[in-house]
């Protein structure tokens, strides 16, 4: 499968935090959700992809090209949305359009006005009077109007009400009608991801814990519940993570069929939600 983002053995050291030998491939033509707790390295990874942070070592390719030689070509094809406001507060969307549009070869004013209308944004009001949801919509309009091949978003749904989150997810689905486009976005609201993501990348303490398709996660991972007495040194090996509560246990497994063979009707094997997977990977040791 063609890759849109390829990170190989990336290293970056900060005081108190480091990313060591990070490897990550993002498939072209899909929505990939990037999840992990606060401070796990999501923003750092996104900033390295955008060349806002320079890795200490390692290889980084976007559309098969490196920033060193092709930074401008790469960024012409990327649309970006960040969780903090990076646009000049005193300016209106019309002013920002005047500033940003000439920067991109493929800027399309028609697309720009369509999104403005769709999101019901005021053209002549300064950004500083916008609500958080409106700011996010404005960032999205500016990110999408040059018809980018890759859309990178850092926590686009953080702090937004459910109505707008639904709008955003719908917009993402519309964008993905075009099979050449790819979306990579970080979030900690996992319910959003289950609706639209094709792949989920999970990062913890600067390490990629898994990078799976949503189908793999739903079919190969399962939640197992049963009586504590069933767990001994041997059976424990069949689970990835176990948590105990009084006389019962709750565990995550990547071998639901084998568990069914071993325990039969003595345990309940259930579908596992992304949130539960994250909970197990994050919290239970």
């Amino acid at each position, binding site marked *: 499968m063609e890759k849109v983002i390829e990170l190989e053995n990336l290293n970056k050291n900060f005081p108190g935090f480091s990313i060591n030998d990070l490897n990550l491939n993002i498939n072209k033509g899909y929505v990939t959700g990037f999840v992990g707790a606060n401070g796990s390295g999501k923003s750092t990874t996104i900033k390295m992809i955008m060349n806002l942070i320079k890795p200490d070592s390692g290889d980084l390719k976007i559309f098969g090209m490196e920033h060193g030689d092709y930074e401008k070509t790469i960024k012409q094809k990327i649309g970006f949305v960040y969780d903090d406001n990076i646009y000049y507060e005193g300016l209106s969307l019309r002013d920002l359009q005047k*500033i940003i549009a000439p920067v991109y070869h493929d800027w399309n004013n028609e697309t720009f006005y369509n999104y403005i209308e769709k999101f019901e944004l005021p053209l002549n009001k300064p950004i500083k009077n916008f609500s958080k949801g409106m700011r996010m919509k404005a960032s999205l309009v500016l990110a999408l109007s040059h018809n980018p091949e890759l859309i990178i978003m850092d926590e686009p749904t953080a702090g937004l009400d459910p109505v707008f989150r639904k709008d955003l997810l719908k917009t993402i689905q519309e964008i993905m009608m075009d099979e050449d486009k790819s979306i990579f976005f970080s979030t900690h609201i996992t319910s959003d991801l289950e609706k639209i993501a094709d792949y989920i990348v999970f990062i913890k303490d600067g390490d990629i814990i898994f990078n799976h398709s949503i189908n793999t996660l739903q079919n190969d991972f399962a939640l197992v519940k049963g009586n504590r007495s069933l767990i001994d040194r041997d059976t424990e090996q069949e689970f990835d993570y176990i948590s105990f509560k009084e006389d019962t246990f709750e565990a995550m497994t990547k071998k639901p069929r084998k568990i069914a063979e071993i325990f039969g009707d003595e345990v309940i094997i259930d579908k596992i939600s992304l949130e539960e997977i994250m909970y197990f990977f994050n919290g239970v040791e």
Partner: protein
Amino acid sequence: MLYFLKRDLILQKKLLWLYVPFILIFVFTWSSPFLIFTVAALYIPYNALAYDEQVNSDKLLNSLPYTRLEITLYRYLGTLVYTAVSILLVSMILMLFDKPFTVYDIGIGVSFFLLIASFTYPLFQIFKQGNITTIIIVAFVLSIGLLSTLSEYLDDFSNAIANSAIDQSLLFTVLILSVLIIYFISWFITYSIYRTKDF
């Protein structure tokens, strides 16, 4: 390049109305014309820096299709363009109000400004965001103070040049060239710092 000029002008559209009154204040309070050229040249580039500081503009600039070399170079070249505009504007105002000035006033005034810029632009890259406004104010007050103290001396200096036996145009060219070389070195220092920065 055009993006940067356009951006500065759109950002400062309100402040630009104050540009002429700002120059007029100095025209009527100071006698040394070269000082007016210096102060007028400061206006647009330093306002732009103050604006950039309000938001995380480096994050925006570096996410747009620009290289770090371009971002720093355009800031320096843009400053030269605004300086040229300020020279025209101040010359017109001075002529309009019948205030005498020479080409040496322009040369010395602008050289002074470019030296201030050469010194402060790399500093902005070293100091953290949040201190830039302070640096601008301190640099402004210091340079005005320095200029006022030096103005008499510089007046004599420019008179001396004007009356000296040395080839005036040669001396003048050497001055401008040295300042431009310093300005270019300053860009190189700024770029060296900016190149490896994390945003």
